């Protein structure tokens, strides 16, 4: 055992520690805050990259907090999929942070600027902890840190729509957190344990079938609100479209995905796929809702006039994809769901940051205003187009790979209806994405909408957009680097 086994806990604590220290720096030297805030995230990313290859795809890295053995102590357990998602979280938060420096200075100022970075770090640290923890109560605590910082970040501008969207988000989010807490209570009362690995053994022996079923349903509802699964998605379009763009990128690219990952953890690590009598019925219902989400999100996205609103509804649709991969309960489906988290994270973050660039340069939010944007902001528009291709799932991009595996997984599970819905979702995605691309590249804008002085945002805003956009292409072409290990990890989990 080398020093690397301490890395996961440092990945989690460094951003949180940074968040604690940052207000002091903000008080003394406000100018340094954006640079200082990037430090802990960079450190986490480096530690995460150093961990690559240290975790076998059919094993895990367990870290006992304070050297207390689980199931008594708190365990941090990083398996292959956990590390995969932690790296996505690190990468996207770091890029969004780079993008933030110029963007957010235009929207908030003074003490709120420091608050923005504090909450940002808190949110990224909480997401990492949420993915890595092996203790179910810790999962709740990290979820609450994550939720509280995201409510505050949606409202950070103090603008009336933003406050209202944040309140709407809170009104749905807070009861869902309480439901998760109640679910943990039921689980604890039926088994007497809080460690996930320990719970997995005890659930099969526990006789309290009804309690466990109710507990699982409450977990799915609780995390379903956070993940914006179809009938519980009402908060998402408002919050995602009104939040500052880097925050939209985090909410849409990461928050909904780590919540979906929490459902994977609860389903496969705690209840395990062997407990079919406990989770089978609920998973069937989730599958139906997820299928509805794919169609509903796609249709609503087509109807939107506001660019960020459209991207937000597209997220509703893509969450359906991820859940259809989970409910298939096959290795291919799970691999598809995990890979979809990667490509959806990259593509959605890229789309929201592009939308942010348009807002930053011209203040344009409506799709109609983007007509002819290509002439003045070619780099942003090309990045947007590339990410859109991944959202649709056109072959060389990562979106194609993940949809391929999602469909394969559902064929394997015999859910042919879902296969049709997944394909239909792609067609809807093509409709709403090509509409924007058509607007940008092939239509001429109104007289005076784009004067000659307007051009691409500065390099510090353009480079994150291009890294994300190139990422969708890279992970599409070089998918063989990850897919075999993910398949093995999925088989290990099932």
């Amino acid at each position, binding site marked *: 055992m080398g020093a690397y086994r301490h890395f996961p806990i440092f990945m989690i604590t460094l951003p949180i520690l940074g968040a604690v220290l940052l207000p002091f720096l903000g008080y003394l030297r406000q100018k340094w805050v954006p640079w200082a805030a990037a430090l802990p995230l960079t450190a986490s990313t480096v530690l995460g990259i150093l961990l690559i290859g240290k975790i076998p795809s059919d094993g895990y890295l367990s870290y006992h907090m304070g050297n207390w053995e689980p199931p008594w102590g708190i365990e941090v357990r990083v398996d292959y999929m956990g590390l995969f998602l932690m790296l996505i979280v690190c990468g996207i938060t770091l890029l969004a942070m780079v993008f933030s420096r110029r963007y957010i200075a235009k*929207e908030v100022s003074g003490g709120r600027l420091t608050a923005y970075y504090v909450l940002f770090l808190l949110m990224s640290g909480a997401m990492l902890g949420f993915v890595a923890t092996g203790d179910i109560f810790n999962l709740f605590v990290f979820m609450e840190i994550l939720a509280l910082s995201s409510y505050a970040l949606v409202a950070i501008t103090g603008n009336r729509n933003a406050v209202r969207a944040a*309140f709407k988000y809170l009104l749905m989010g807070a009861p869902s957190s309480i439901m998760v807490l109640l679910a943990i209570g039921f689980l604890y009362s039926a088994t007497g344990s809080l460690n996930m690995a320990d719970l997995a053994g005890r659930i099969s022996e526990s006789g309290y079938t009804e309690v466990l079923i109710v507990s699982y349903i409450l977990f799915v509802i609780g995390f379903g609100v956070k993940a914006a699964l179809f009938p519980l998605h009402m908060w998402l379009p408002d919050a995602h479209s009104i939040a500052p763009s880097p925050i939209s990128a985090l909410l849409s690219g990461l928050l909904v995905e780590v919540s979906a990952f929490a459902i994977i953890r609860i389903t496969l690590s705690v209840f395990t796929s062997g407990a079919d009598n406990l989770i089978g019925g609920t998973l069937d219902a989730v599958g139906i809702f997820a299928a509805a989400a794919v169609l509903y999100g796609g249709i609503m996205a087509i109807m939107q006039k506001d660019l960020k609103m459209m991207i937000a509804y597209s997220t509703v649709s893509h969450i359906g994809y991820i859940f259809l991969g989970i409910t298939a309960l096959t290795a291919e489906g799970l691999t598809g769901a995990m890979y979809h988290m990667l490509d959806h994270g990259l593509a959605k973050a890229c789309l929201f940051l592009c939308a942010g660039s348009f807002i930053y340069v011209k203040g344009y939010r409506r799709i109609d205003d983007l007509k002819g944007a290509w002439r003045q902001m070619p780099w942003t528009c090309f990045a947007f187009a590339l990410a859109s291709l991944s959202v649709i799932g056109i072959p060389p991009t990562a979106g194609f790979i993940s949809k391929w595996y999602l469909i394969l997984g559902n064929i394997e599970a015999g859910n042919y209806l879902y296969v049709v819905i997944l394909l239909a979702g792609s067609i809807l995605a093509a409709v709403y994405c090509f509409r924007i691309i058509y607007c940008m590249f092939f239509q001429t804008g109104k007289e005076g909408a784009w004067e000659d002085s307007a051009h691409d945002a500065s390099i510090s805003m353009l480079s994150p957009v291009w890294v994300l956009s190139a990422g969708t292409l890279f992970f599409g072409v070089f998918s063989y680097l990850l897919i075999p290990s993910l398949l093995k990890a999925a088989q290990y989990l099932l």
Partner: protein
Amino acid sequence: MRLLHNYQYVAAMLLFCIGLYTIIVRRNIIKKLIGLNIMETAVFFFYISLGYLDGGIAPIRVGGADPSRMVNPIPQALILTGIVVAVSVTALALALVILLYRQYGTLDVDRLFRDEEKEPESGTERGGTA
């Protein structure tokens, strides 16, 4: 009979439902927050009653105390964390309520969300007082 025997769980669930009902049905946002707190209290009550033992003693092993008579301290420790979380959520929610009231002049959800559709998009403008 089992239901009567575990009457404290029934009470907790009733309280939970009252809270949920208040959040869903009441139009005043302060009342919604009160409902939220009732829900939280119900869950805390549920946890504490899990660890309760009739005539139990504090879980401290001094002077050969009998472990079988000790109350379970874990739910209490968990709920201490839960209370902290609940206080933070309430504080943030009340801060948002103050901002909402300053900018809309109402606490009624129907009036708050009524003009949502036709509101012009104003993402970059910075308004309000903090």
